[in-house]
Structure formats: C-alpha cells, structure tokens
C-alpha cells in the first residue's frame, strides 16, 4: 500500500511537473517573441532589413534609404527601454535554467519519513516550497513583463522576499506535493502529535498516514464509550484548515480521493488503510471492505474549501448504510426443524475483530452456563451497574453453516464502544444526524398532518353542503317543470 501511495505521489508529481514545464515553455516562448518584437522595433526598418523585406526588385523604383529614414524613427520609438530588455533577457535565462532543473529532478527528495527529526522535515519542506515559489515568482514576473506592467519601484520590493506564503490557492494546488510518510500502527499518540506539530507550521505539507492494524485503535480509556486519546478522524475539528481524507480501496474512487488529497492547496492528512507485509491483494480488498462495514475504518473527506459551513465540508458518502449506526450481516442457519433460516446480525467492530489475526485473541468461547450472555449491541445500551455479571457476545457463522457465539473481552468491548461513538459523532458533525433537527422534524410532521386533516374535514363538509344544496335545487326545478307541463303555464323567472 505504501507503494500505491507513493505511486500516486509520483503521478501527481508528473502531472504537476508537466504543467510547470508547459508554463515555463509558454513563458519562454512569449518572452522570446517579445524580444524579437523589440529587435524588429529597433532594426526592422534599418536599410538592410527593409531591403530584405521588400525584395530585390524594390530598389529599382524605391529609394530604400529614404524610406528607411521615413519609417525608422517611429518604429524605433516603440523599442523597450534597455533596462526592461535586460530584465526580460535575464528572465528568459532564468526560466530556461529552472525548466532544465525541473526536468531532471529526482523524486525521492519529495517524500520523507515521520521518523526523521521534526526540524529536518520542516527544513526540507521549506526548501521544497521555496523552490516552487521561485518558479511561480518567475512565472508571475513573466506575465507582468509580457504586459509591460512590471514596475521596478513596486515590484522589485514585492518580489524580493517571495516565499511559499505569497502563493495563491490555485498556485498551491499546482505545487508538486511534499509528502511525509507516517505509519500509525502501534502509535499511542506520539506520532499523531508529531503530525499535528508539522502541520502547525502552516506549510502545505501532505502527510500520508498509513495503518494496517486495528490493535490499538484508541481504546485506552477506562470508561466505556469515549476515548480520551485523539482520533485521527476528528482531526478536522482541531485543525479546520487542514484537508483530511480517510480512504482505502473499498472506495470506488479511491485513486481520485488520493489525488484530491495530494493536490489540495493546503496542508493535508491522507489516512489510508494498507495491507500487511505478506497480505494477498484479494484478501486485503475484502478485509478493507469489512473494516469499512464494521465502522472500524469510516471513510470520510473534509475539504475546507468546499463551503463556508463546516457540515457541508465533511463528507461521509463513501460509507455504506449512512442512515444506520451499524450495517448488518445476514447469517444463514437452521432452525430447530432443520429449515434454512436467515438471521440479521449487526456487524460490529467485534465481528470484524474475529477476522483480524491480531485481534482474534480477544474473542473466546462462551462458558457452559450461558445465562449471563447478552448480545453486544444490547450490552452497550446497559448502564455500568446493569452490566455487572453480564458477558457480551456476538454471533458468527461457523464453518458448518451454523452459528456460533463468541464472548468478547473487556478491551474489545471498549474498542467497539469507542468506534460506535466515533461513527455517531461523525454522522453528527457531517450533519446527517442532529437531535435538534430530529425533534423539530417530528413536531413539524405532526403539525402538518394535523393541518391536513383539518383541511380535509373542512372540504368534506363543504362538499356535503353544496351537494345538499344542488339536490334541493334540482328537486325544485323538477317540480316546477312538472307543474308547467301539467298546467301548460310557464312559471315566471325561468330562462
């Protein structure tokens, strides 16, 4: 997986590198044309040039010296000042050099490891970004010069101290990324803190946080439910200016998400689930999917630039069953009559742990006396007092097509609880779930229903009344007609 991430980095680098090279080439070409135009202004109507331009027969009928004198003055007056010409020529040379350098730049100095000294990492990053800033500086100056808008009095100072801090968001997006690789397996928080410390510098560093194990995922607190250690998924709350994406191959647009993260115009953390050392690709693929289903590895993206409102920046849509707390698994078993029966079982972290080699030890067979067994999801609803003496269990499919129960350890229970709480939190901060909104919605629904019923009632009454009225009128009319018919006298008021 590390290789995949590095491959993505390379791809982005190549993409950005090409864009930079194109920009260099275009600027060099246009500046060179500017110099050529200037050459034309200076000498285009010199006698020899004019002779060439007019061709060999012109001299018979035209006095080319005289024409040159007539035209030369005004053409020469359009030439650049020597100072500007000098600046432009230097700029072309500078851009040429940079273009050369960029095309030969090796890739590995662009990524580094979290293990290195923080000071070292920051120094490398600063060098990298200032180098890029140098390129953009030259490109910006080129645009100014091309439009004759470069004013040494203003711009010399403005460009004298040009660092990455002066770059605009779109330029930052075009910067080849500086990547810090961080493996978070077994991290008790120190590495994550180091990551945050690096990001505090404000430099648009990209941290690739890789994990392949769920062993120590944040379940250090004694209390059920909430971990006091920091979780990487809630990083955006602490650092609202950092782009965050947690993703893995279970996402259909995994590559795109990597790309977006690597090209964000701000510091970014890209958290990726990786395969273990000797893990088979196919096996990892299904493991990744299970991790996502179990809410062990919720996929999310936080893009601060998407909107000014936090909830709209936070996106959970890669996850299955967004509207539910837990996904469900269907287990096949047989009932007492031996008939095939399907059982819905919520798929928790504990279920996932059953297939993780470093966590499977946290599950054990239930005791013979199963009177104290409580299903895990129910167990998590119990208060601390209610849990005394109870054992949480989960149901798993066994190899013979049956269902087996496993008791889970306290430690694992804490982890389950923590992951569930995280998922709930993520749903709330992304705006999918909000208790206040829910209450309001319920109230509104009730009111609306009541209104509708009232309206319906009114309408019904009116209809009945008007029907009665029409009946009456029809009866009256019928009698009138009958009378007229019988007596031969037209009653007044008709027609």
């Amino acid at each position, binding site marked *: 997986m590390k290789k995949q991430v590095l491959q993505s980095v390379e791809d982005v680098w190549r993409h950005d590198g090409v864009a930079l090279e194109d920009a260099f080439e275009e600027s060099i070409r246009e500046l060179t*044309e500017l110099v050529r135009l200037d050459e034309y202004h200076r000498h285009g*109507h010199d006698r020899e040039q004019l002779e060439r331009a007019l*061709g060999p*027969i*012109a001299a018979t*009928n035209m006095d080319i010296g*005289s024409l040159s004198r*007539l035209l030369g003055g*005004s053409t020469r007056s359009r030439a650049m000042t020597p100072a500007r010409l000098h600046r432009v020529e230097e700029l072309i040379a500078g851009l040429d050099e940079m273009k050369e350098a960029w095309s030969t730049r090796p890739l590995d100095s662009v990524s580094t490891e979290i293990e290195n000294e923080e000071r070292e990492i920051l120094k490398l990053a600063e060098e990298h970004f200032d180098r890029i800033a140098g390129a953009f500086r030259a490109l910006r100056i080129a645009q100014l010069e091309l439009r*004759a808008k470069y004013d040494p009095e203003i711009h010399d100072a403005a460009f004298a101290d040009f660092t990455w801090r002066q770059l605009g968001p779109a330029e930052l997006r075009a910067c080849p990324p500086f990547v810090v690789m961080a493996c978070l397996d077994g991290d008790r928080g120190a590495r994550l803190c180091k990551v945050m410390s690096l990001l505090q510098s404000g430099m648009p560093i990209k941290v690739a946080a890789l994990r392949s194990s769920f062993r120590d995922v944040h379940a250090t607190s004694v209390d059920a439910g909430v971990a006091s250690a920091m979780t990487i998924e809630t990083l955006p709350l602490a650092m609202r200016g950092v782009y965050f994406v947690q993703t893995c191959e279970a996402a259909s647009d995994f590559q795109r998400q990597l790309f977006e993260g690597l090209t964000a115009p701000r510091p970014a953390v890209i958290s990726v689930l990786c395969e273990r050392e000797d893990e088979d690709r196919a096996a990892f693929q299904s493991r990744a999917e299970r991790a996502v289903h179990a809410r062990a590895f919720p996929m999310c993206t936080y893009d601060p630039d998407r909107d000014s409102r936090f909830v709209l920046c936070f996106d959970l849509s890669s996850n299955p069953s967004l509207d539910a707390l837990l996904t469900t698994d269907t287990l096949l078993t047989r009932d007492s009559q031996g008939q095939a029966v399907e059982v819905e079982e919520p798929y928790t972290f504990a279920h996932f742990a059953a297939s993780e080699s470093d966590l499977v030890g946290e599950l054990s067979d239930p005791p013979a006396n199963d009177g104290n067994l409580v299903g895990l999801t129910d167990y998590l609803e119990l208060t601390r007092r209610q849990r005394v003496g109870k054992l949480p269990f989960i149901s798993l499919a066994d190899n013979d097509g049956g269902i087996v129960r496993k008791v889970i350890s306290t430690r694992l229970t804490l982890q389950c609880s923590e992951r569930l709480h995280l998922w709930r939190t993520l749903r709330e901060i992304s705006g999918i779930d909000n208790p206040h909104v829910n209450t309001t919605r319920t109230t509104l629904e009730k009111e609306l229903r009541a209104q509708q019923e009232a309206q319906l009632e009114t309408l019904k009454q009116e209809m009945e009344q008007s029907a009665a009225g029409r009946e009456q009128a029809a009866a009256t009319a019928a009698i009138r007609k009958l009378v007229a018919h019988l007596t031969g006298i037209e009653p007044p008021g008709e027609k």
Partner: protein
Amino acid sequence: MSGPRPLRLPEHIVEIVSDAGEGAQKAALAFAQLCAKSGNGLWTVEIIPSEIRPPPHTTGSASGNRIRLAERARVTNAGNRANVVLAFNEMALLSRLEAGSLADDVLVLIDDHWATHEDEKYRLSYREVLDEFRSRGATIVEVPLAKETLRHAEDAQQGKNMFAVGILCALYSKDLDLLDDVIRDIFKAKDRRVIELAVRLAAAGHQYGVTHFDRCFEIEAHPSDVAKVAMNGNTALALGAVSAGFEICSMYPITPATSASHALSEIFEDFGGFVHQAEDEIAAIGVALGASYAGKTALTITSGPGMALKTEFQGLAVMTETPLVIVDVQRGGPSTGLPTKIEQSDLLHAIYGAPGDAPKVVIAPSTIEECYYILSIARKIAEEFRMLVIVLSDANLATGQQLFNRPDVSQTPRRPPLDLSPVAPGALPYDWDPTTGLSQRLLPGQPDGMGVTTSLNHDRNGKARYDAESNQRGHAMRSRKLAALQKTLNPPSVHGAPQGDLLLVGWGSTRGAIEEAVDVARSEGLSVSSLHIQFLSPLPPGLLEIFARFRQIITVELNYSDDWNDPLITNENRRYGQLAWILRAATLQDIDCIARVPGRPYMPVEILEEVKRILADRPGVASSAPALAAGKGVH
C-alpha cells in the same frame, strides 16, 4: 542522323493547337520544358477556348499554347506573329489565322487525317483552309499524325500529342534524350505503361521528322547555372503572398483571378494561412478588412467587376486608415465584357473609383517575376502607411508563363509578432505626424488603446466630427501620406537614350512588347525610347524632367481611346487612354496615346509600326488609322 542542315535563328514562335481535350497543352508543356532545359529563354501563353463546352472541330474549340523560344535568356512578351503552327485539325488552324496570330509565311504542320476522312464536310473544309493558307504564302506540311500514332497506340486521341512533341523536337534539332527525361518527369505520377508509350510515341515523332522534313531550325541554347523557375503570374502572386507573410486571403471566384486563389488554397494552410471564399465580393473584402483591423494585414484578389462591388469598402479602408491589399487581375470590360481576355482598363477606377476623396496606392507589376515580389512591397506600404494598396495585374501576366531567376527563399524575412504592448498614456488612434500624415496603428488587445474606429469623419481621437476644420485636416493627412510615399520613390529609368524624338510610356504587362519594339526601332536608327511606370498612385518623381527631353510623349496601353479619325471626334471631346489622361493632368503636357482594346497583348511589331507612322507624321499628333489589331475579331 541524316537530314538537312539546321537554320540558325535567334528566336521562333510556335503555336500548338487542337480541340479541347486532345492534349495540345501537354504537348506544349513538354516542348516548353524541353526548350527550357536546353537553355532557351521562354515565354508561353495559353490559348483558351472562349466558351466552356464549345462543339468540337470548330474555331471556337481551339485550345493550345503559344511558345516563344529564344537564344537570349530573357524573353519578355509573347512576340509577333507565329512562325510555326502545329494543328491537329484545320478549324483549330483557321482560328489562329482569324486571331491574327500567324505570320503570312507560317510553316503549317497539320494532321492529314482529315484529308481522307470519310465525312465529306471535313475533307472539304480541310482543303479550303489549306488553300487559304497557301494563297497567303504559307508552307503546308501534312503529317499523318493520327495514322502514325495508331502504329504504337490503340487510341490516336491519347497519343497524338506526344508524337507531335517528337516532331517539334526534330524540327528544332533538340536532343531526344533530353525530351525523354522531360516526358518521364511530366508523367511521373502515371502508370509505367503510359510513360513508356509516351516516350515511344515521342521517339517515333522525332524519327518521322528527321526522315521526312526538308528543313529544320536551331535556336541556340545556353544552359546557365543560375537556377530558374517558370510559372504564370497568378501562381507568382500566390507564392508571393506566402513569402510576403500574409495569413489570410479572402476572395470570391472571378475570371481571371481565381487561379491565383486556387494556387494559394493548395499550399496556404501549410504556411499558417488560409484562403476564405466569401459569399460575395463585398463580404470578401469585408473579411479582409476585419482581419487587417484586428492586426493581420489581409489580401483579397479579384477582377474588374469585383473591384466595382468592393468600392464602398475601399473607401472605408481609406477613411479608417486600415491597411489592406487588393489585387485586381484586370480583364476586358466594361461590365462582364471579355472575362478571359486581356485589357488594362481599371486604372482610373483603381485610383479614383471610391466616392469622396480617397487617396490610395496603386502599383502595377510589369513582369511575372515582379508578380512574385510585388506583394511584399504592397504589404509593407499598406502597414506602415496605413493605406489601401491596389495591385493591378492582368490576364496577360495571369496566363502567360515566363522563365525567371528562382527567388532566393532564404532571404524571406519572418513576420514580426503582433505588437500588443500597452499604449503610452495619451496616445491617439490617429496621431498624424503633421508633415507626413503617418500615424501608429492601435491594435485590438493593446491595453489603454480602446476606442472606436469609425467610417465617419473624425479627428485624431477617432471621435466623429462634423466641422469644416476637422474635415479639411482629415483629408489633408490622408492625402499627405501619398506625398510622403512619393518622396521615397525613384524616378523611373528610361529604356533607350535619355532624349529623343519619341518617348513611349507604358504600365503593367505591356512592358516587354514596348521595350522590344523600341530595341528594334533603335537598331533601325529611330530616335525612340520608352519609360515604364510601376507606381501609378502616387506617380513617381522626375517625369517632367524626363518628358522635357523628348519631342513627343505617347502612352501605349490596352484600354480604350477615341480615334482621331473617328467621326465627331475633336480636340474638345476626344477621350484618351487612362494613363495618358492621368499624365496629361499631372504634367500639363499634350501627351497622346496608343490605346485600343483588342483583347490580346500588343505585338512588338504592331508597336513598331505605330512608332514609324508617328515619326513620319507631324509630331504632336498620334497616328491616324493605326495598324494595330489587323486580324478579324479577337483571340
């Protein structure tokens, strides 16, 4: 090889004519290339049927070429009456007689197929035509063209022409191996069998000539190591447009200009340009003007009727001082006139045609070589002076082919890039230099140069103005530019002695014939010189001085003038040729003219006869009953 001793001559004129589709043109091409390769100077002209689908075997269907080959390298015109004519049938032959194109003692080589044709009508006309020729002094040589061709090919129609070239090769003592090379080159795109057949037929024709002809000629040839090219004037204009750096040519089809656009259309896209065919003549110049206004001077190519339609736009170009180049390939007028015939009668229209006072530059190339270079000159003037430049070519240059020194392409300068730099504060769109009237153009895209370019009278700001003073000034500035240009022109050089009895003045494609006539006249002791004017607006300096040294000044031009001997014509109402009219006004001299509209070029001998007549008459009055255009009708 046995045969008669060749008669050495300095030049000869051969016409090859057939029905359309029988390949006389290809035969002519092969023969011309043979002569060129062997080092002769050349001028060739197409003989075009006047209608699109004339009935065959009539005088109206004659198609072919006239080839003038010479010992000297530079041949400048189509020459006098032809010495040799090779005809595939007697009606084609007759058409050349009717065109006045053949010398009385012409050598006729004719396909004798018609002498024994099954149709009596053909046998009769064949005899009658040949009798007519004999009575005029022609020598008839009947050649079994069709019969001999059938010995080698299945279809005589598809091979006569190559047999004919072989005959000419023998007649002119040319090298058969060289002809072989030429034929292989011409047919290189064809099937091998076609090539071999053509070569065989040519060899057979050559053999026939060598064994049967009692005379042959030798026009000495001096192959030079100077690279040469041969093309017609329209092709030269097209290539010239490319080398002048034009990027857009906008046109509408009109004879005889269209082939220039065809030639350009084939190649322009490879050079970053394109030819746009507009919906009409007016749109054509509109597009060219719009393109020029936006910064890339453009070109439009047309003929007389198109010039008329473009007149309003010409005025717009002048008033807005937008650079523009129009090429007018002149033809017989007025109105639809003679679309395929030669005339130079758009001069006054070109200079004065637009309403109001619209000073513009008018220049006329006089040779095909000049057609290649003239567009570079036109473009430079148009851009730097912000003027409309009209280039007057004609059907003579357009369809003739001349051998000239291959242009050195490496000398072609690169177009400078568009100047889109910000405009200096306070810069005005018509910042006329009060002395010269010149001003710098502001191009769309230049910051701070925004403003409206208007067809209304305007001041230096470009703002519409209605007062007397600004109108006067605008006129003065636009007119001044002509004077500024005129100051950079050289006086034209006199061909012949700088003083004398008679000075012939010409413009455009008549140069070659005029100078040739003058050379002959001078060799006979006559005191005549000639002058050729390239810049017609503005006129070049020095004319008065030059004219002062001659007793009589007479223009020679292909446009209409009243004849002194015509009824009702007097001093007060006589209409002059167009250049004569201009020169009379410009110099206040009593300049007369030789100005007629035969629809074909003057022959040097015709001009010479006029010169003699004029010098014999009282000076100051042009000839009565001129000997020009003696033949019936026109080409």
